């Protein structure tokens, strides 16, 4: 019955080894920490015994203790134990430095000093994480990287407000306590040994039991130190790792990035992909009309129009490419993609400058506060203006055009309308551009309505009305 029980299983049952602490050997194999599920599985396979029932079990238990003490990670644990005292001293020193700089603030000179101490504490926390990983095999995921934040002011703000900083301060407190405990263990063990050796009269009769007693004291001290190391391994991840809120934030950021990427891909498909396709077909057709096969006539007028379409399409595609690349570059620099990806109402000015360069006399009215409109709606409004103005260029040439973004009660109204074109050199197709189909979809998704059609005065109007409430 015993022969099938592995050392590991016995340890899990053996009362001498606290199973509630993550065990170093297991941390190696499962870096995320001991899972409660794992222990339940062991409980099912091995009947739970509170006391060792036979000599064989005691033997197996002892082997378990020895294996735990000299397990695969024992050199690392010895090193970690040796570092308990100096690390405790360092923690104490940093606490003094922190309190000292707080006192100095009162005298008006210590603000920089506090920041310096906090930064040092975060640095020490990084070293501690590395120590836990390399010596004890406990993997501690780092939290927010203050160093990666853009700008000195953000860095300083995050340094002071980050929960990670204050958890690191808490860890230093734990370090001081661990150091004190180590000191106490060493002190009492030494005192006991000295007392045993010099406080008693040794003779032939009691020498052996006294020696055994001393050995027991040393063993107890070692076990206590081991317990302290395990404590550090258990508490460390909580204080040094990313907090729950940070892990959730990281997950959310990941999801947002994915959504941003998908949106970017769809945008590229709708804008650049489509503009290039139309340009390619126009160019191919133009070439054919200039040098037709057989007895077909040369059509320079078609070629001229085709070139104009290609010019308009390519200009719009390049502007979109520019924006897409800036988004990708922003992400490359390690900055969050989200704040850069969607265009905002503020970007409309730049868009219209480009169109005016292209010869379109266009006026823009934005009569709504930027902070009244959720980011998603701002991006949609930008798209409406972009699509509307591009379509004017495509289908009507360069008539006078007015773009408006207005707040009407609880709705946001975005419209682009143009006067009657002077010469109707392109067909005002009912379908409009490819983007119009995409806009339809997005407007519907946002709970709004899209209308597009000719105006009584001979122009064309695109109008999108979006609900402002509950759209965020």
């Amino acid at each position, binding site marked *: 019955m015993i022969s099938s029980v592995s050392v590991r299983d016995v340890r899990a049952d053996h009362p001498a080894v606290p199973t509630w602490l993550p065990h170093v050997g297991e941390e190696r194999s499962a870096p995320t920490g001991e899972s409660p599920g794992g222990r339940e599985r062991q409980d099912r396979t091995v009947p739970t015994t509170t006391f060792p029932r036979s000599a064989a079990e005691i033997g197996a238990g002892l082997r378990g203790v020895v294996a735990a003490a000299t397990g695969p990670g024992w050199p690392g644990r010895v090193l970690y134990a040796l570092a308990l005292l100096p690390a405790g001293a360092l923690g104490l020193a940093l606490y003094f430095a922190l309190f000292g700089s707080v006192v100095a603030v009162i005298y008006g000179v210590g603000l920089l000093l506090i920041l310096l101490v906090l930064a040092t504490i975060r640095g020490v926390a990084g070293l501690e994480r590395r120590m836990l990983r390399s010596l004890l095999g406990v993997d501690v995921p780092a939290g927010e990287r203050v160093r990666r934040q853009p700008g000195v002011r953000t860095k300083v703000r995050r340094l002071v407000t980050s929960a990670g900083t204050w958890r690191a301060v808490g860890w230093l407190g734990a370090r001081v306590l661990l150091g004190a405990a180590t000191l106490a263990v060493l002190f009492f063990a030494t005192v006991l040994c000295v007392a045993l050796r010099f406080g008693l009269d040794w003779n032939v009769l009691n020498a052996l039991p006294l020696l055994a007693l001393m050995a027991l004291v040393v063993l107890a001290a070692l076990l206590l130190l081991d317990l302290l190391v395990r404590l550090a391994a258990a508490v460390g991840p909580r204080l040094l790792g990313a907090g729950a809120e940070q892990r959730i934030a990281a997950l959310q950021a990941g999801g947002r990035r994915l959504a941003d990427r998908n949106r970017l891909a769809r945008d590229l*498909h709708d804008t650049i*992909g*489509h503009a*290039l*396709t*139309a340009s*390619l*077909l*126009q*160019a*191919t*057709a*133009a070439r*054919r*009309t200039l040098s*037709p*096969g*057989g007895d*077909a006539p040369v*059509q320079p007028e*078609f070629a001229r129009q*085709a070139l104009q*379409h290609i010019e308009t*399409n390519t200009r719009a595609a390049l502007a979109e490419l520019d924006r897409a690349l800036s988004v990708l570059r922003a992400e490359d620099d390690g900055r969050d993609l989200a704040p850069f990806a969607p265009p905002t109402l503020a970007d409309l000015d730049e868009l219209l400058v480009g169109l005016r360069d292209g010869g379109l006399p266009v006026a823009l009215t934005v009569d709504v506060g930027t902070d009244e409109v959720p980011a998603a709606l701002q991006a949609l409004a930008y798209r409406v203006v972009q699509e509307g103005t591009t379509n004017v260029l*495509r*289908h009507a040439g360069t008539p006078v055009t007015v773009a408006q973004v207005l707040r009407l009660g609880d709705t946001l109204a975005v419209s682009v309308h143009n006067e009657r074109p002077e010469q109707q050199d*392109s*067909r005002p*197709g*009912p*379908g*409009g*551009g*490819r983007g*119009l*189909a995409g806009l*339809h979809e997005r407007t519907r998704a946002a709970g709004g309505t899209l209308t597009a059609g000719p105006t009584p005065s001979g122009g064309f109007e695109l109008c999108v009305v979006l609900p402002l409430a509950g759209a965020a």
Partner: protein
Amino acid sequence: MTLRLVLVDDDVLVRSGLRVILESEPDLTVVGEAGTGREALEVAARTDPDVVLMDVRMPDMDGITATERLIARDPGRPRVLVLTTFEDDDYLFRSLKAGASGFALKRADPDELVDAIRIVARGSSLVLPDLTRRLIASHTPSRARGAAALPELTGREADVLRLVAAGLSNAEIAAEMFLSRETVKTHVSGVLLKLGARDRTQAVIAAYESGFMTA
């Protein structure tokens, strides 16, 4: 014989470019244009084209739905060639399932595009055989039921279907099996009839979905 075409795309620039490119071919003539799937149905009913060149994403009614409706109206005519900007697997497979005879990229060389139209009209081969076969194979769950799933085929017809599904044209199959082209044509017709398939593309889908061909 002139092939009558209808162009369906929501962008006038794409349509006008395509029209010029295709009309420069002596055997092709564009008899109608449409900007949405719904318009396409109406234009096709009015003009009775041989081949409809169908965009996928359009407002009002997309190309996949329009293809389905066209095929449901008359399985024989017109055939549908799907035009796409990007090789979006899902859209393309869905359009083949809806009954399109093949697909071509809008960025394809004009000669390739014209070839694809002629192939679709004649039905003597798959359009973009490798791409089409891979697309169908990768979208069909492999059931590995083996040839037993299509028992009504004769040995010869089964061989022909295997080569059709591999993307070979009638001429290539004739060379492979040491048969005349006419004989191959007869076998292919027999296979299509027994599978209830309108054209080779649908036969290949049936071959994969029944487990006769495995991915």
